[in-house]
């Protein structure tokens, strides 16, 4: 199980994410910055729900909150579309 890939875009195995969480990462963003999980072409559409399951506490239920860890662009984009004149 430990060698199993979790973030397919960046090829990050389960053991790397577990280690990061053990060392204190508590949010999607922290895991992302430490391991690159969720920074690939799909921007976490596949691995985000998985990494959430590995975090110390899932989002508390029945509360309203600002969700973190989403960045534009949410789809792969040519730089020319981003920096248009």
């Amino acid at each position: 199980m430990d060698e199993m890939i979790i973030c397919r875009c960046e090829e990050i195995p389960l053991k790397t994410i577990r280690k990061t969480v053990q060392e204190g990462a508590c949010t999607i963003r922290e895991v992302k910055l430490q391991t690159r999980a969720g920074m690939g072409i799909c921007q976490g559409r596949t691995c985000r729900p998985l990494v959430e399951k590995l975090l110390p506490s899932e989002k508390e239920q029945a509360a309203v909150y600002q969700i973190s860890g989403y960045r534009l662009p949410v789809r792969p984009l040519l730089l020319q579309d981003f920096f248009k004149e």
Partner: protein
Amino acid sequence: MQNDLIIIGAGPAGLSAAIQAASYGAKVTVVDETPYPGGKLLGQLYEEPKKGMWIGGEIAKKLYSQAVDLGVTFLFEREVWSIFPTWKVSLNNHQDLRAPNVLLATGAAERPIPIPGWTIPGVMAVGAAQVLCNLQRVRPGKRVLIVGVDILSLTIARELQWAGVDVVGMVLPPPSPFSGQKADPRFHLAALSNMSHLAPSPILRMAGNLAKAVPVNQAARFYPRKGVKIWDIPLMLRKAAIEIQGRDEVERVILADVTVEGEILNHQTQSIEVDCVCISGGLYPLAELAALAGCPFVNLPELGGQIPLHSAQLETLLPGLYVAGNITGIEGAKVAMAQGELAALSIIGRLQNNLEKMAPLIEEAMQKVKRVREEASISFHPEIVLGRRKMQALWEETLTSQSAQ
């Protein structure tokens, strides 16, 4: 041309909303990243009890031509990469659209369940198999094993079989932080008892009734190891796929017997030869654009996960931003359509600056959503109604605390 409304997503929710809004004279543009209208409707093909065949592709065609006749503009193969209040919608072709109202009808994505070997070519999500098979007309494999038992994978197993694929069986995923209840035979027997009115095989119906009559862990104990056949496909609730193997592509899967609780019995394994594995982990609302816009979220497992906070009229807290369809919670296509109509009426009320005049129509549309939900033959989450109620309570609480400030 100035848009009144931009709809992101041309699935059943987006298409129904477009028709409704355009019928009130609104200028509507619909954007979708795929080449075709219909969203997830396009793969849907199954028999409904007492109602006959549900052919999603035909419904999509009908909705699309209705919308086109009403003057709705469609942009296909355009990815929305961000939205900015209030409101600019940015597309991947150098183009920005502007409108006072945006409807997010972006649907759902599949929740993966990783198991060792899941990155080998030939392993796919069950929804990908559905699209390959029913839309692209390509069989995903000759001999297919399905991992994960739920209403979606049962439906797709049947569709694959209709396409001439040999579906060799359906098994559970192994226990892990990712599979949760989906690895527990007791959970499945309880779920099957809720679906037993849909169950095609008398034995499955019996299993369902058994689970209703006796405690589920007893029913799970009596569940035969080699499975119960449903449309000739062994439904093996006492076996889990612990590893997928193959050099360049899928060659075989290692199955292990599991206890009543779903724990792996390592000494009781077998290997099964297949060229394709479909994994079903359920759906979650695709709400990334709402997150970028700064919408507050709530986490309601009854609705499928993290969802933008919204009212029963489908407005969000951000002025002019609305949601409809699976982004509000995982339900079937008919509910998505009714929600699309409702969201459009809310938007028309805002556009005409006359919510009062629209109120009776909005109320009627809300009742319709409820009715369609009650009559739905497919329900992805048994507690959907509870989830909807919680959402409404959180919405009201938030409004109250905001007005107090």
